[in-house]
């Protein structure tokens, strides 16, 4: 990890400010392509064209802050992580430039810089590993398993299988059932068809004359719009049910006119 990040000061003269700015501009266009601030820092560090262990953190900090500044000027919206990193880097920069304050606690600028360099190196190493991994001779690509599985005996044993995923999903399904309860309605403002039917069966005997369906709505279901809607639908369905059974006749004189029903005496 060794190389002191503050070595930056010695190396910086050869850093071409113009070139790096240009690089930063190119980066801005592609800001969506970055997987977070660490990824961006790693890309910026490449412009220094040095071994990651020798990267100048101070220089990198300046590049990053310049990038954020430009993104702001261009009114590019940056995710919060990028801004958090910018704040931290600004803090780091001040720590690196100012002489250490003996009264202050916490890690020194060098330690912070070393940690950042470590993070970058570690991420780069993981990228490298990922690439090596994917380049291996892979199953179904370079290496193949047996194509045909053999069935030589007639003796069959049934085993039941389930994967961990099935198990966890089953549990999640049970435990979050309340999230998906389109079918479990809040019953207090729902009148079911059965309830309406029961009620109507009792009342229909008195309907010798045409009566408006709406007059069958139970008490307390006529004003609140929600309840009224539910009760109307239930009563209508119940009326159809009774008509099917031959108990009532239904009529409607014109579209949207009141629906009326009356008892139908046995033919």
């Amino acid at each position, binding site marked *: 990890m060794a190389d002191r990040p503050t070595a930056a000061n010695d190396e910086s003269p050869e850093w071409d400010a113009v070139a790096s700015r240009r690089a930063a501009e190119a980066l801005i266009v592609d800001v969506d392509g970055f997987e977070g601030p660490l990824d961006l820092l790693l890309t910026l560090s490449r412009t220094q064209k040095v071994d990651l262990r020798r990267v100048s953190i101070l220089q990198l900090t300046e590049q990053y802050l310049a990038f954020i500044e430009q993104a702001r000027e261009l009114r590019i919206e940056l995710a919060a992580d990028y801004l958090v990193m910018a704040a931290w880097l600004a803090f780091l920069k001040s720590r690196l430039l100012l002489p250490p304050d003996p009264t202050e606690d916490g890690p020194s600028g060098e330690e912070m810089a070393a940690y950042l360099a470590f993070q970058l190196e570690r991420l780069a190493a993981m990228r490298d590993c990922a690439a090596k991994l994917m380049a291996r001779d892979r199953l179904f690509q370079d290496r193949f398993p047996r194509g045909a599985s053999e069935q030589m*005996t007639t003796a069959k044993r049934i*085993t*039941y299988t389930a994967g961990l995923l099935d198990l966890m999903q089953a*549990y999640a399904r*049970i435990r*979050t059932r*309340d*999230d998906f309860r389109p079918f479990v309605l809040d019953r207090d403002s729902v009148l079911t068809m059965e309830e309406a039917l029961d009620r109507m069966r009792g009342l229909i005997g008195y309907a010798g004359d045409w009566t408006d369906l709406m007059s069958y709505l139970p008490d307390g279901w006529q004003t609140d719009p929600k309840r009224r809607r539910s009760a109307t639908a239930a009563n209508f369905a119940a009326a159809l049910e009774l008509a099917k059974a031959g108990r009532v006749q239904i009529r409607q004189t014109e579209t949207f006119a009141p629906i009326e029903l009356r008892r139908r005496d046995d033919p």
Partner: protein
Amino acid sequence: MSDAPDSRGDSLFRAPPLAEQERMVEAMLFASTEPLTIAEMEARMPHGSDPAEAVHLLRRRYEGRGVQVTRVGDAWAIRTAADLGFLMARETVETRKLSRAAIETLAIIAYHQPVTRAEIEEIRGVTVSRGTVDQLIELEWVRFGRRRMTPGRPVTYVVTQAFLDHFGLESARDLPGLKELREAGLLESRPPDGAEADGPRDDATGDMFDDDADAQLPENDEDY
């Protein structure tokens, strides 16, 4: 090794050595789901290869071995030697997916163990049929735990080592909680507030039942 497919053009008339062709035939017969004809092998091999000869060599090489190069109609396949058929007896197992009722019951036992039958029913909101638990016990994924020291002293169920082995778990406490399931992307919806739950088997099992107990009407265990 030597003959990448694109080198075919250069060495138009130079087929790979016969030993190499034999390797090729061996790999193809092994990986193929169906027996392969000589023509099919030839089509895949570098130009100028002689798969018939290679198969002939391969067949001799496998004489007396545990597997044999066998002729199937006008094609070739690798098959287990007839005398070793007894080893394959357990190969032909038919695997079936567990029913939804069973997997849910199993999940509840894993997450809440030791758990009584009544508690399982309370969590699932449906009656658990005898056969479901029996099946899990028969699979040796579930066994009886200690009796609960409550009225009636009901038996409890716990999961077994075989369960852990099957599901690749080191212990039942390593089962992820809802929050972790969600983070891993295994759960899509966000829970209602406060339902942010619970790793496996937290001691507050009693609390877990609360939300369910009110909302869920018991249903019949209509085998899914």
